[in-house]
């Protein structure tokens, strides 16, 4: 690529103001001697000038207020979700702690042996399995009841 072609390739960026001082000097020096590049640079400059003066889409009235209202609404929803997560975590912890405490009491009362259908229910493994099944069943029932109550509220 000769100097003319090389400078010609730089003309759009020169008009966009994106050349370094050295490159810009090179373009200017060449354009002084080359009419073709000078004319082309003028055209590119007209494009750059036109791009800076495009018809402006103005922000619609009330944009700020609507944005603020949506942010506040979103903020409230997120805070509600966070609260629900904390509540769920606390309930799970409470459930396991209760189960553990009740296991200790049951073992103390039964002397560590309470057999029904050939299974010792105060044994550690059986107790934790039973607690897990009970917890999941209770959670499923609560979820169904909560869902029905929400549907009912929406209907009303």
């Amino acid at each position, binding site marked *: 690529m000769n100097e003319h072609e090389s400078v010609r390739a730089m003309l*759009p*960026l020169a008009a966009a103001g*994106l050349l370094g001082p050295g490159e810009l000097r090179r373009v200017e020096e060449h354009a002084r001697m080359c009419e073709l590049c000078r004319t082309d640079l*003028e055209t590119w400059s007209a494009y750059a000038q036109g791009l800076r003066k495009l018809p402006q*889409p103005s922000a619609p009235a009330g944009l*700020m207020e609507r944005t*603020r209202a949506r942010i506040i609404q979103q903020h409230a929803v997120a805070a509600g979700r966070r609260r629900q997560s904390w509540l769920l975590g606390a309930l799970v912890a409470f459930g396991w702690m209760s189960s553990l405490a009740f296991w200790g009491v049951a073992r103390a009362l039964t002397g560590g042996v309470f057999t029904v259908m050939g299974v010792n229910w105060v044994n550690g493994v059986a107790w934790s399995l039973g607690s897990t099944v009970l917890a999941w069943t209770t959670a499923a029932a609560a979820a169904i009841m909560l869902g029905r109550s929400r549907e009912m509220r929406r209907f009303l």
Partner: protein
Amino acid sequence: MILAAAMSLEGFTGDREIARLRKGDPDAITDLVGRYQHRLYRFLVRMVGDPATAEDLFQQTWIRLMEKIGSYDARRNFEAWLFAIARNLAIDHLRRCRGISLDELDDSGQAPVERLVAGGPDVLSQLLDFERGALLAAAIEELPAIHREVLTLRFEEDMKLEQIAEVAGVPLSTVKSRLHRALESLRTRIEASGKGIL
């Protein structure tokens, strides 16, 4: 000196607003939205071409900003970060709704006359500016999104190469070549239509 003082004041105000946002104060967003509403909305209109979608993306941008403010690095340029969030949402929207590659063309349309901003040295030059602007705006709408993006960031937002690279998440050399191709493509389209802007 006055300029430096003004800049430092602006930086200080921004930092204070960001600190308030970090504490989860939604009122702090009002000043920031007010400061950037015209520029950000204009950028989104250029990106998606539809005012209603631009407004929805504008609101989503601020919601996303509130969600991500905790991870914002204060050493980063806030403006570039904000525009990068808006840009990513616009790109996601274009991908999702139009199902097109970012290099493909989108629908073209005419810029409405009522958007002409009053001003200019006189009526004739204003009219010429408007005609030139309308011609360019229509040609820009036909360009691929990645080209519309660099053109609006450079010429309307007056961003430097480094800022554009930060917004678009690409290296400086890519920004340069995209701008070069965008300008070449714009000129080719306008010249092919038999009109000139000079």
